[in-house]
């Protein structure tokens, strides 16, 4: 029990996938994760391998098929929507619907799990919102409309919204999918900073494999044969990354700590 107390996320023998009356489609099974707080985790895997399904299961958007998820020692299924919203915030990859919300209003929505029935912002709420702006360096955008922002700015603002929710865990689904390399690195280092300095647990699904290898504290690797989680260095040492893309075109270069094109 003492050992369990340290884990912000603990996953036991989890199976994920979709089930309907007719049949059950298992996407991945036998997932075991033990994660400590203050880490940045990158979830890596090929397209269609089930990264999104794992994140959706972890955030209670869809039910587990088998096994159990503990967040802060509480079973995920026992948490209400609002309790979960106070522990875990999201940055999704989907486009925001058109609206004329200002950046401030968008970030302030992050306080919803804590505000009263009409959504009144107390001075404490405002303090947290302003801190979120400062941490993400977006204070100057506060009065802009969301539709005026560039993709890079919008991503930072969405991270600010998650920070305003003030949760120990932030889950991001492909946060750099639309960004150029400058903004991608910018976003990753911001997230890394949030994990190391503010003790947040950050879970990112991403295709920026090389960047993830340099910055992530831990990796969750999804490959067709199995799921592996662990510290980045240990996984490199164990040659676990070779499993990621079972392709002759790409190979993992251990000295460079990067994937390269095979010259065969």
């Amino acid at each position, binding site marked *: 029990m003492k050992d369990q107390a340290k884990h912000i996320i603990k996953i036991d023998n989890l199976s994920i996938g979709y089930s309907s009356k007719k049949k059950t489609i298992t996407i991945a099974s036998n997932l075991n994760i033990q994660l400590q707080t203050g880490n940045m985790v990158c979830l890596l895997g090929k397209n269609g391998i089930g990264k999104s399904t794992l994140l959706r299961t972890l*955030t209670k*958007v869809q039910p587990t098929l088998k096994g159990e998820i503990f967040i802060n020692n509480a079973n995920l299924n026992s948490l*209400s*929507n*609002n*309790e*979960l*919203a*106070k522990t*875990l*915030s*999201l940055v*999704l990859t*989907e486009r*925001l*619907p*058109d*609206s*004329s*919300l*200002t950046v*401030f*209003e*968008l970030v*302030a*929505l*992050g306080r*919803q*799990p804590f*505000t009263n*029935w*009409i*959504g009144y*912002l107390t*001075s404490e709420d*405002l*303090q947290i919102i*302003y801190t979120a702006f400062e941490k993400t360096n977006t204070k100057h955008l*506060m*009065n802009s*409309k969301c*539709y005026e922002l560039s993709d890079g700015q919008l991503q930072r603002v969405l991270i600010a919204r998650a920070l305003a*929710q003030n949760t120990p865990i932030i889950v991001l689904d492909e946060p750099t999918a639309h960004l150029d390399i400058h903004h991608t690195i910018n976003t990753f280092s911001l997230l890394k900073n949030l994990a190391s300095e503010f003790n947040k647990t950050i879970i990112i699904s991403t295709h920026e494999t090389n960047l993830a290898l340099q910055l992530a504290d831990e990796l969750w690797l999804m490959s067709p044969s199995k799921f592996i989680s662990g510290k980045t260095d240990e996984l490199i040492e164990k040659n676990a990354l070779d499993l990621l893309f079972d392709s002759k075109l790409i190979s993992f270069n251990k000295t460079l700590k990067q994937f390269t094109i095979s010259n065969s």
Partner: protein
Amino acid sequence: MVSPIKSYKNTFLILFFALALICFVNISLGSVYIPLKQIFLSIINGDVEKDSWRSIVLSYRIPKAITAIIVGSGLSISGLLMQTLFRNPLAGPFVLGISSGASLGVAILILGASFFGATLSSYAFTNFGLAIAASLGAFLVLSAVMLAAIKVRNTMSILIIGLMFGSLTASVISILAYFSSASQLQQYMFWSFGSLGNLSWKEITVLLTTFLIGILLVVFIIKPLNSLLLGENYAKSMGVNVKKTRNLILIATSLLTGVITAFSGPIAFIGLAVPHLTKLLFNTSNHKILLPAVAISGAIIMLICDSIAQLPTSEFTLPINAITSLFGAPIIIWLLVRKRKIYY
């Protein structure tokens, strides 16, 4: 530390002033000319020169103005709710099939009477008879849409199901119309033009009570409505019970739109246009501001349309449905061309 969310206090003050002004203008206009002073005296129960003036003001013009306010704001709020829920600018208060249901009910009463060989007493064709037929029809179609809504997870599907029910009832009405006489058709047409007048105080009490219940429901969903602006997944991640919110939105819309359609007929355009107009004027998506703004704007626009419809100093009254679109559509087009895009 201050919140930089604009409060729009001045805009609201102007809107309230405009509402009071247009309300008074609306009451002072009509087929019979009544001096302003006499209107005022009738309202405060003073000495009026002619008793007929007092009764025109108290039992015709004021009830009509109140009806216009309730109809205007109720339909506009419903339209806003539907546009936010479905994240679709073409959604209006009638996408749940309420107007088509009400039309079906009235069509069956008026057009179908002879079709089914029944002889209905003339009572059936009074205001109240029509209201009952409209309510029953609206309730039936709405229940069908709601039942389907419980079954489907996807919010967009509800929109399409609502539209399909609309087409379905429209074709039934066409068939009924095909077999009916010219006078019956005319009577049905008159109902479908919509009307704000002829409501007794008793009917207005029913209208007002239901309206207030609907508004009360809406006030309690302002917060989840705002988070729905980010899409259902974000809303859920912020602790919103999306399904419960969706049901509350549907119930509030049905109450507001249902009772309004029952008493005043299928009044088109207002519910679709006023939310757009308000969003253009206020340039915000925050429902804490939009909802009261839409309610007041809806009331103002309905009163203006009604004032135009009764053709001041003439005995004729134009159909209210014609006026709402005739004057509303060009304004929306002009605003869109000028401002290019509405953000929801």
